[in-house]
């Protein structure tokens, strides 16, 4: 079994959870004997290589004069979906405010521009989510065509909308089955204010897919209700969590004696950081031997810093900025509660990550992980009173906190990428009819 896997992120190049998940999944698939050709826009640093895995950057794929012509190579339907005329900005990052300021609105004739934009017989890719994202998605589609002609594989596996046009092209040329893996929908990313061009591309890929893997029931429901996709071809496969860690809770040095309640993630609308701040305010009205920590960056950072100042929480609320590798582990290991108040979270790995460091979690009901994580406290993201009460409850009820860690730990033991990998391999086999 050989899989042509199309992705957008892969370590060390990751900007969200997608790269981490793709990495873990690819590894377990190859361990289970599946060959994977993993294609992403651009490979950074040293290429990971072993006999079952080949990592390929789309910027390395050679194009002839003939293959670089869109109209000759890409199917009519895909072309129509890709023809957009507005500036795209699908991810809210800390840069997005500045980007918005300098945002240009002139129409882009994507395809015409791309035709000329080639050096040494290769397309350039940045591989990020910048303002040329739609260009890169279109170029990537053409790479899909070339790969389908030159490579041998049994099934195509595509991660999120950026890779869908390429995947559809590869399917059309190779005749091999396509499995689309949805880690987040446009509706999750934007708090239900989708960019219509992205939604159109996403929908198109899903319609053309033979099977769809959704990371949660919540995501599956969204695909059915927002895009009208046939539910019979959507299957839920939950993410697992990588259990590698360098730091143990017992060994971490704690400088502060107060309990620590942690938010870690992008400080953007989707993640609900503002609800965390408001809940902190309510908790601090009742107790003061607690500190709240917000780790991460994002376009709501300044606003929330001002809000914390306005509420005079400066003695109990801290911002760490972006944390790297070991700091992330330290932060988890120092914490007493992890809060994930996401407004919309297709899955949400972090509560399980927190559990690795024996940190009980409070998570929003609007997350995919809430479907499987029994021993987390679940609240509606908007219910700041309930969130505050739950924080106080766990901080003051030692037994409860210990129980959550003990039982949650057992759940964690049962979750493995191995199981998720096996399920996916079953789908491959069913699709190719072997």
């Amino acid at each position: 079994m050989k899989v042509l896997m199309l992705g957008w992120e892969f370590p060390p190049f990751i900007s969200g959870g997608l790269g981490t998940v793709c990495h873990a999944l690819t590894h377990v698939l190859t361990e289970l004997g599946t060959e994977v050709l993993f294609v992403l826009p651009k490979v950074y640093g040293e290429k990971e290589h072993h006999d079952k895995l080949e990592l390929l950057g789309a910027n390395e794929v050679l194009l002839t004069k003939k293959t670089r012509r869109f109209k000759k190579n890409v199917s009519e339907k895909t072309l129509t979906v890709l023809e957009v005329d507005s500036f795209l900005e699908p991810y809210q990052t800390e840069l997005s405010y500045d980007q918005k300021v300098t945002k240009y609105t002139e129409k882009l004739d994507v395809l015409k521009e791309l035709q000329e934009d080639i050096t040494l017989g290769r397309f350039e890719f940045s591989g990020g989510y910048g303002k040329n994202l739609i260009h890169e998605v279109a170029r990537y589609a053409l790479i899909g065509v070339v790969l389908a002609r030159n490579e041998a594989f049994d099934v195509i596996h595509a991660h999120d909308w950026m890779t869908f046009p390429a995947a559809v092209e590869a399917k059309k040329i190779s005749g091999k089955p396509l499995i689309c893996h949805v880690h987040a929908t446009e509706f999750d990313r934007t708090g239900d204010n989708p960019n219509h061009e992205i939604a159109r591309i996403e929908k198109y890929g899903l319609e053309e897919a033979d099977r769809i893997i959704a990371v949660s029931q919540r995501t599956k429901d969204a695909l059915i209700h927002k895009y009208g996709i046939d539910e019979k071809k959507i299957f839920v496969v939950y993410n697992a969590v990588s259990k590698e860690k360098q730091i143990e809770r017992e060994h971490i040095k704690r400088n502060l004696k107060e309990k620590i309640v942690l938010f870690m993630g992008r400080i953007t609308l989707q993640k609900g950081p503002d609800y965390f701040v408001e809940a902190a305010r309510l908790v601090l009205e009742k107790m003061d031997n607690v500190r709240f920590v917000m780790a991460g960056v994002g376009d709501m950072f300044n606003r929330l810093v001002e809000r914390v100042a306005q509420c005079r929480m400066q003695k109990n609320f801290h911002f760490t900025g972006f944390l790297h590798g070991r700091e992330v582990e330290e932060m988890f290991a120092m914490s007493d509660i992890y809060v994930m108040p996401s407004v919309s979270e297709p899955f949400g790995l972090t509560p399980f990550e927190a559990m690795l460091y024996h940190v009980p979690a409070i998570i929003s009901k609007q997350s995919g992980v809430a479907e499987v994580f029994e021993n987390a406290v679940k609240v509606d993201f908007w219910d700041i009173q309930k969130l505050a009460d739950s924080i106080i409850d766990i901080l003051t009820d030692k037994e409860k906190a210990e129980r959550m860690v003990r039982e949650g730990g057992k759940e964690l033991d049962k979750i493995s990428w191995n199981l998720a990998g096996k399920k996916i391999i079953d789908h491959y086999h069913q699709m190719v009819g072997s």
Partner: protein
Amino acid sequence: MISVCFYFQVHQPFRLRQDYNFFKIGEDRDYEDARLNREIVRKVAEKCYLPTNALMLDLIRRFNGEFKISYSISGVALEQFELFAPDVLQTFRELVDTGCVELINETYYHSLSFLFSKTEFKAQVEAHREKLKYLFGYTPKTFRNTELIYNNDLAREIEKMGYDAILAEGADQILGWRSPNYVYLPTPAYKLKLLLKNYRLSDDMAFRFSDRNWLDFPLDSEKYARWMHAVAGNGEVINLFMDYETFGEHQWADTGIFDFMNHLPAAILRHPDFCFKTPSEIAATHQPLAKIDCPYFVSWADLERDTTAWLGNSMQDSAAEYLYSLEEEMRATGDINLIHTWRKLQTSDHFYYMCTKWFSDGDVHKYFNPYPTPHSAYVTYVNVLNDMSECLKRRRG
């Protein structure tokens, strides 16, 4: 006789380490970016302090006692000169030794303490006094508060503390139709002389000098002296108050600012009715023309000439509240090192960095802000305060 009074402000804050993050709270007592502070002090020393001091010394000698100036050098600046620039300190000593230089008293820490704590304020004024005595053998008679922040209460306090004169901004909101070119009496005072900055003439030099869009660009010493001579007949003093860093730092050497200053005293003294005096000399020789009432705070900052550069947004206010909430416990420790560290956090610059007034329009003020945003300035500052607070908690046991 019309007295021209130059007062130059010399100040450098102890800037904080921007990597002072959450993980360092309760762990790391080293708050300052010693390398950056040394770098800046050295840079400004080379560009401004050393060449300007040399120029001033030369002018004083050339004019045989007729050219006089005054300085207020904050305690934290003096301390950094001791650490990083003893050569600067040496040239200031030479200047003071000429007898043509007055040193003005301020709060050692260039702080906003008068707005928060009279006890703290007095302690810091005293500390600065001691420092001037120790370094220069000098006893000051004139006072100016941080950034010329001033009101009636301050005047009353300063008179009680025995000073002859106080400096303030000649702000429109307190002067109204009146001219800054006279000596005034603060409403609650009996004999304290109030010297008000002539902000038009001062800012022509300090801000507009190199502005190519200014109608009077380029400014030369003859033209400037002409404007000053025009005061003859309707004024008694011309108070030119500005940052010393105007020379070589705000106005770079290539703008011709040094050359301008070099020729200015001669141009001014060409008029027989003009002379140079220091603030305490003016206080001794001029009588106040009228009372000035100033119930609200004024300062020399921004167009607003109020305290909104340092206080008023939620970050500045919460940080200041936190800072001064530690006061009593801090003093009770009696630990001079700890108190000194805490007081250095009172330096007004820390609050200036959190100012959001000009952040959106990329104002020149950003030039003086080592932080990328006011918000990151706040986060760093509050982390440091949290650590100070931890220190106190641990002492309590």
